[in-house]
Each structure stands twice: as C-alpha cells, then as structure tokens.
C-alpha cells in the first residue's frame, strides 16, 4: 500500500513537470532562464541545508571539543557573514546580468492584451510606442483568449485591464506580469519552440478567476502573418436563422461580429470565434454542443461570468445560434 502510494505520488509529481502549462517544460527564453535559476537555487539550497544539518548533528554530540571564542567568532564571520555575502552577491550579479538579454527591445509584433473579468481581450498589430502609457492603444485586429505569436521574434505584449488587477502568466514562455488598470505593462515573449501553450490569470480577480485561461500558439512567422490577416477580415456571414436569432436576442449588445450589425464591445469579439480552439477563455473545446451549452446555462458552465444565461430561449434558437457561431471561422 505504501509502495503504491509512493509510486502514485511520484507519478503525480513527475506528471506535474510536463505539459502545456508547466514552467518545467520551457519553450521561451525567459522561462528557460527562470528554470535554470530555479535549479541552481534548489541545488544550492539543498547543499546548504545538508551542511547545516551536518553541523547541527555534530554540535549535538555529547563529547564535542570545547572551542575558543576566537574560533567561534571566525566560524560566524566566515560562515555567517562572508559566505552568505559572497553567495548572495554572486546570485544577485548573475541575475542582474541576465536582464539586458531578457529586456532587449521587441523586434516582432506588438499585441495588446487586456485582462477583463473573466477573459482576455486581444488586439494584434497595435502601435505600442516607447515609454510608459496609461491605456492600451485603440484599434488593431481584435480577438480574444487566444494569442498567436511568431517563432524566433520578440513579441511585445502590452498588458492592462479596465476593471481589476489580473496577471498574465504563460508558464512555459515567461514569468507572470500583472495587468493593472490605468497602466500598461510590457512583457516581451521570445518563444524558442512552436507549439500550443496554456496560460492563466495568476492574480485572483473574482468568482471565475480560475476559469480565466488562455492559449498561446507559437507558429512560424508566415503562418502568424496569415493568421492575423485572416482575423482582420470580416466574418463570412450568412443571413440564416442563427444570425437572426443572435441579433434579435440582444447578443449584439455585448458581442461584435464584424460584417453584421453586431458591434457590442463588452464581451469577446466573435467574428472568428470558431477559428479559436476553445470557448469561455480556455474552458471548453469549440463545438456546436459547447456553444449551445454556454448560451443555455452560462453561469453553470462558468460560474461568476458576466454574461447572463439565455436558457429562456427556445431550444431550436439556441442550437441555431450555436450552429451559426460554429461557421464563424
């Protein structure tokens, strides 16, 4: 039983080190450096811990030799003053020396990301400009909850929020950075491998905080350009029942579908919602059933979400809207 538990604990521990949302599986320059720092700090910490325990065990022996005051002071000076000073100075300088490389200016696209309760508003191709800015630049190519960035470029993420403090964290790519109302923080991502990485809001922001996920797609540069160009186009809309129901039932008050009269700015832009891999900020895979479920019982699927449930709509209308949304690629 004990062996089984140990094996289980080991499996869980190891499993936690891999995957799309693990800082132990880095795919970005900053995450790689942070991981290296972590291992060195861990190794150093373990070595010092072993040394302290060894000295404690020795000191607890009944027949230890009596040392002079001078020896005691020398131990304190060398082990308690000089050693920590040298180690801390070396770590500090090494950490600081990493900064110029990590803080190099971006040479890739600028993407505005706004943390909002409880999703991520994304705008590609915005003008960042140098220096401290208070509010995210307007315009750009809107999207949400999914960020595509090119491989081998340093992409600048401009972070802010209109409501409360959120924190943007994609562990395999870089450390976390806060999205603060009234201030724009800049995070530069330099991915080193293509792939899909999961991120999360890392600062408690309200009821649905735990459901405020995002996906980052690292792709070759030409694919990135093509993606942004596709996102910039209006939706391929048909005027079927789904589109009508969407407009008649007030969805357009909060959501934009470019190419239709829907131009609400409260919730995510749905122009190309079906091209995204998830709905509800990383919550559910994009399928007709999940669209319908999200519309039907929003607060059940994502408790605390700002969107009201539309379960009062006739079922066929919900399905029609879901089917229509699934066509918005």
């Amino acid at each position: 039983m004990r062996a089984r538990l140990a094996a289980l604990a080991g499996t869980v521990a190891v499993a936690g080190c891999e995957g799309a949302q693990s800082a132990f599986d880095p795919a970005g320059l900053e995450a790689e450096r942070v991981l290296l720092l972590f291992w060195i700090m861990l190794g150093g910490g373990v070595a010092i811990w072993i040394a302290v325990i060894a000295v404690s065990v020795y000191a607890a022996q009944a027949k230890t030799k009596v040392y002079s005051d001078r020896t005691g002071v020398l131990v304190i000076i060398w082990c308690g003053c000089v050693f920590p000073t040298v180690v801390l100075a070396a770590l500090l300088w090494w950490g600081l020396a990493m900064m110029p490389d990590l803080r190099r200016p971006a040479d890739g696209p600028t993407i505005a990301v706004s943390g909002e309760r409880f999703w991520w508003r994304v705008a590609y191709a915005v003008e960042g400009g140098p220096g401290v800015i208070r509010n995210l630049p307007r315009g750009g190519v809107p999207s949400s909850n999914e960020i595509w960035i090119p491989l081998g470029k340093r992409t600048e993420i401009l972070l802010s929020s209109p409501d409360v403090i959120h924190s943007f964290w994609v562990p395999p790519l870089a450390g976390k950075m806060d999205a603060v109302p009234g201030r724009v923080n800049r995070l530069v991502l330099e991915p080193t491998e293509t792939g899909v990485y999961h991120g999360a809001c890392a600062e408690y922001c309200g009821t649905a905080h735990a459901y405020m996920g995002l996906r980052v797609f690292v792709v070759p540069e030409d694919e990135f350009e093509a993606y942004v160009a596709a996102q910039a186009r209006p939706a391929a809309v048909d005027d079927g029942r789904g589109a009508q129901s969407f407009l008649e039932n007030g969805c357009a008050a909060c959501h934009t579908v470019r190419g239709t009269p829907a131009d609400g700015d409260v919730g995510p832009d749905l122009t190309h919602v079906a091209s995204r891999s998830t709905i509800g900020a990383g919550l559910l895979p994009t399928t007709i059933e999940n669209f319908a479920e999200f519309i039907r019982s929003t607060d059940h699927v994502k408790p605390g979400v700002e969107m009201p449930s539309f379960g009062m709509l006739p079922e066929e209308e919900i399905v029609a809207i879901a089917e229509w949304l699934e066509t918005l690629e």
Partner: protein
Amino acid sequence: MQVFGKTQDNLWTLIAAPAIWGFHFLFSYFLAAYRCAPNDDIFGTRAAIAVVTVICLLLILLIARRAGREWRTYGGAYRNDQATDNARERFLEFSTLLLAALSFVAVVFETLPIFVFWDCR
C-alpha cells in the same frame, strides 16, 4: 561627537550606518519611481544614485573605521558581557563595526541595478 578620538558610543552611533543604508534605499527607490512614472531619460537618475552611493559608502566607511579603531585599541575582544562601562563601550563599538559592514554590503547591492537598467520599461 568626536570622530577620530575616543568617542562615547551610544545607540545613535550604533544605528548611524543602518540609517544611512535606509536613507540610500529610500532615496534610490523614490527617485527611480518618480523619474520612471513619466518615463524620463534616467541617465541623470542613475548618475545621481551613483553619487549618493559613493557618499553613503564613504560615510559608512568612516563609521566603521572609527568604531573598529576604538574597539581594536582597547583590546578587540569579542566577548563584552560584563556590567561595566568599558564592556558596554566595546560591545557598542564592535556592534557598530558589524552593522557598518552589513550596511556597506547592502548599499552596494542596492546600487548594482543602475549598471543594468538603462530605461524604465
């Protein structure tokens, strides 16, 4: 207060070096925050911090030298736990020396970022 003779140590002489460290910390922190809010060019900020650092380090060295010299002159013993004026004086001098050393290192550590950060991003 006599600087290079026999000084009567007290709590004020003891905390002088950490107080300089505290001043240096607040000065650097506030100046950098103030100049970075509108994202001004921070070359001047870094230079100002460098100048203040040099002054702070010199003052701390002066304090360390004064305390160390007096402590050594009167025996330089590590154990000063008798209830006498002399032991109290030596205790304060030795403590001042140690605190000055700590403050010196801390001020140097606080200053290192000015060699790395060129802008306010």
